[in-house]
């Protein structure tokens, strides 16, 4: 079980696509920094073709900074820094897409 982090906007970078290519069943996907734009429900949600069992997380401080709190896709769970640490602990490894 891998925790994938994505830190770039899916509209301007291939990071999220790369991640979705590599992500496996039951892996975790955490959007951070400009990656949180991928959690915006308005932009066609490139997150759709996810393998089964994947939860999508978005880092709270980054979501708030970008004014996205009211624009999030329902599938996305907003987490704080403490939960970020817990996620790294509860996965075997982490891969950073940037």
């Amino acid at each position, binding site marked *: 079980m891998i925790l994938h982090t994505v*830190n770039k906007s899916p509209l301007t970078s291939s990071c999220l696509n790369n991640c979705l290519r590599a992500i496996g069943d039951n892996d975790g996907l955490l959007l*951070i*920094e*400009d990656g949180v734009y991928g959690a915006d429900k308005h932009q066609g949600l490139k997150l759709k073709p996810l393998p089964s069992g994947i939860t999508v997380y978005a*880092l709270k*401080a*980054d979501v708030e900074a970008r004014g996205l709190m009211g624009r999030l896709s329902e599938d996305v769970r907003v987490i704080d*820094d*403490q939960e*970020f*640490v*817990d996620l*790294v*602990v*509860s996965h075997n*490894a*982490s*891969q*950073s*897409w*940037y």
Partner: protein
Amino acid sequence: MSPTPISFSILVYGAPYSSQSVSTAYRFTKTAIEKGHRIHRVFFYGDAVQIGSRLVAVPQDEVDLQLKWQQLGEQYQLDMVICIAAALKRGIINSDEAKRFEKDASNLAEGFTLSGLGQMIDATQSSDRIVTFGY
């Protein structure tokens, strides 16, 4: 949820201020410590080596990221390593290297050490988790 404490190494690649990575990595590291985990090493590579220049003068309305890392490092005795190869070509230099390269000054800030990529590879072997903060 309070898991058994484990050890982390943190890899940081982005320039402070030009990228969020140094800042996000700081929050993660501090939070991990506060949750009782151990930080084996923080390794700054690529443009992130700029965190180690003591000649930085941060504007009053911006956060002093170097000071924050130094305070965290001092409080918890963190091993904060700056990749020496990445550092030298970006103008981060300690007094030993300054002598070797015949520079008239050095600028490595307190709390950071210059060392080789072996420290990154060691981190992969000596920590339970590696977390990378890319640029």
